[in-house]
């Protein structure tokens, strides 16, 4: 009731005010969640020590913090938080882009086979045993798998200089099914139970034991991809209405649409490579924000980036703290909190739902 009142009052504000209010609110929430994430863990570290470490991350020891506390913050908690932020940002922006391009509220990054390709890449690396020789072979292969899936799907859908969206969608579904079958067959035919566990736990997704190397793999490119999509968000607005309108308003549809698809594949592939498949983020975050701020992608793209980051950070805090020192999978939490909250918003805002 109260939320609905705020949403309707919010929708009366000008675009510029809405951008400022929503961005500031979400940034505040993200900063607060990051501070909580840094503070929460099986080892108790007081807030003064945390502040001291954050202000002097390379000072091994000081009056306010010990070397062990510094290492816990800088080597264990910070990389995990940053990977979580990056993955949340990438998945939700990719989800939003797909939903706009396909004009389908159910579209998510997996629809064109990118997630399945990433999963197959990881499964190949695990099955062959590459991770024992090269530590980052699994994320690398996951990314290559995503890229391969994208290339195969595009090659089917691209002919005579035009991209056929229905063919893209159908090829994506077919490739997803094909790759998923190969994954299932690999698991079933696997004789070694340890390899089966490696595969299943990778497929479950998670942010366990993330390091600065994972940050280096994903963060720069996901950030750049998000910025580029944000820069072209006006085109996304037009494409989400119709191709004819887009063309009449000067959008080069034949160039921009494949560009968006390549970018969202890149974001998804990178996110999958460092976290496995964390479900619901790419589907739910754009929907929740669309319910709150409306369908304008100039506003939605940056907000989805921050909102997705916030969502995964909160989910990871819960995953780490509910049963510590044990942990839950972050994907379990994203589904557990994401789905009911999404349903709650749907019920509360039936009249204000913006869709394609």
């Amino acid at each position, binding site marked *: 009731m109260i939320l609905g009142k705020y949403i309707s009052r919010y929708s009366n504000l000008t675009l510029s005010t809405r951008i400022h209010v929503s961005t500031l609110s979400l940034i505040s929430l993200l900063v607060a969640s990051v501070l909580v994430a840094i503070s929460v*863990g*099986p*080892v108790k570290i007081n807030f003064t020590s945390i502040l001291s470490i954050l202000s002097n991350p390379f000072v091994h020891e000081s009056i306010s913090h010990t070397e*062990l506390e510094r*290492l*816990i913050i800088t*080597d*264990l*908690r910070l990389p995990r938080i940053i990977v979580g932020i990056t993955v949340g940002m990438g998945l939700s922006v990719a989800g939003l882009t797909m939903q706009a391009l396909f004009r389908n509220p159910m579209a998510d990054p997996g629809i064109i086979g990118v997630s399945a390709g990433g999963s197959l890449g990881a499964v190949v690396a*695990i099955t062959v045993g590459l*991770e*024992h020789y090269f*530590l980052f072979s*699994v994320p690398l292969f996951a990314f290559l798998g995503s890229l391969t899936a994208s290339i195969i799907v595009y090659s089917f859908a691209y002919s005579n200089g035009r991209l056929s969206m229905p063919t893209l969608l159908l090829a994506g579904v077919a490739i997803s099914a094909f790759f998923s079958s190969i994954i299932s067959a690999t698991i079933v035919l696997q*004789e*070694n*139970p*340890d*390899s089966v*566990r*490696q*595969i299943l*736990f*990778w497929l479950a997704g*998670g942010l*366990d*034991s*993330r390091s600065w190397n994972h940050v280096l793999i994903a963060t720069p490119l996901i950030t750049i991809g998000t910025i580029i999509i944000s820069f072209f968000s006006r085109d996304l607005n037009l494409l989400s209405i119709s191709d004819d309108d887009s063309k009449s308003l000067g959008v080069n549809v034949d160039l921009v649409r494949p560009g968006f698809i390549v970018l969202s594949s890149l974001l998804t592939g990178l996110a999958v490579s460092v976290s*496995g498949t964390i479900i619901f983020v790419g589907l739910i975050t754009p929907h929740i924000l669309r319910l709150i701020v409306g369908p304008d992608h100039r506003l939605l793209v940056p907000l989805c980036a921050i909102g997705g980051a916030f969502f995964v950070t909160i989910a990871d805090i819960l995953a*780490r703290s509910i*049963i*510590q*020192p*044990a*942990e*839950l*999978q972050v994907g379990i939490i994203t589904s557990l909190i994401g789905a009911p909250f999404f349903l709650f918003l749907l019920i509360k805002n039936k009249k204000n739902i913006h869709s394609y």
Partner: protein
Amino acid sequence: MVKIRFQRKKSVLLSLGLLLILSTVTSIVIQDNFFPETVVQENADPEKEKSELWPRNITGFNGITTIERKPRRIISASVGHDEMTVALVPLERLVAVTKISKDPLYSNIAELVKDIPSVDRDPENIIALNPDVIVTSPYFPADSISKLVDLNISVIQTNLASNIDNQIDQIALLGSIYGEEVRALQLSQQIRARFDFIQSISVDAEYTNKQSVLALSQYSDQIWTAGSNSTEGYIIEAAGGINSAAQSGLEGNVTTSFEGLISMAPDLIIITQPLKFGGASFIEELKTKPALKEIPAIKNNRIYPVETKLFTTLSFWNIRGIEELAKILWPDKLENQSFDGFDPFTTR
């Protein structure tokens, strides 16, 4: 209008109430019928004539099963059952075992069963082997069991346990199923004696002398540990150690984090996954991660890879795991002690 809505709500509530009662009654009935305690109904006396002992009724996890005569063609369909069965009956009576029992990394009887066919869960493949009895765990698919029972094949599901008392009960039950009560008794006495020997060493120790132990494995960057009510946890405590994970309130096999390891601060770490399937790289990671260097086990270089098959299989072979860990925990008392495996039935 209000009255109609109220009546609708009332009828919905009434239906939900009835549904709740119905499901409760159904679950109680199902529980009573399908999950009874595993007990041997008949006290077999090996001195009596065999004809007097058969048929016999065995109550397993899947209910009461009548075995008409001493089984000559046995299918065992879980690693734990395979290991116990090999110790109780001559290999000639075993017509099929689980595939994984042939892998020396995960099975203590791999060499012995290498020529015995392996069995899957497909009823047709099982029927082709013409078994007298199939012994398996509660995880065997219920529909496969139902089809086999329809074809007059005796299927008995029994619970496997890491606790030594329950394992001895299981051996007695299997002995009764196979008509090998004397051998079951001998094996139980052997297990009990070996267990008591380790207990005599660890029980004498002051609690403060006991070391905390953490069992770890890592799959796809997820770190797994074993809390209370886990096989590894039971082995740690039976060997005279303190299970760090159980002390931190963890139950069963659960995931933890590097920071979780710091908070549990074990005196020693055992790696229960095979070295060539991730164990070696995990040990390397533990040793080289700067944030972990103050954990006593890492600081004092006390990370021990252990044989997976001794620590994870649910059979009496866990005793070997207890003995191996006890040697690490009590080197002054067990330094010169060597422990043997268990003999199969055929070598006696």
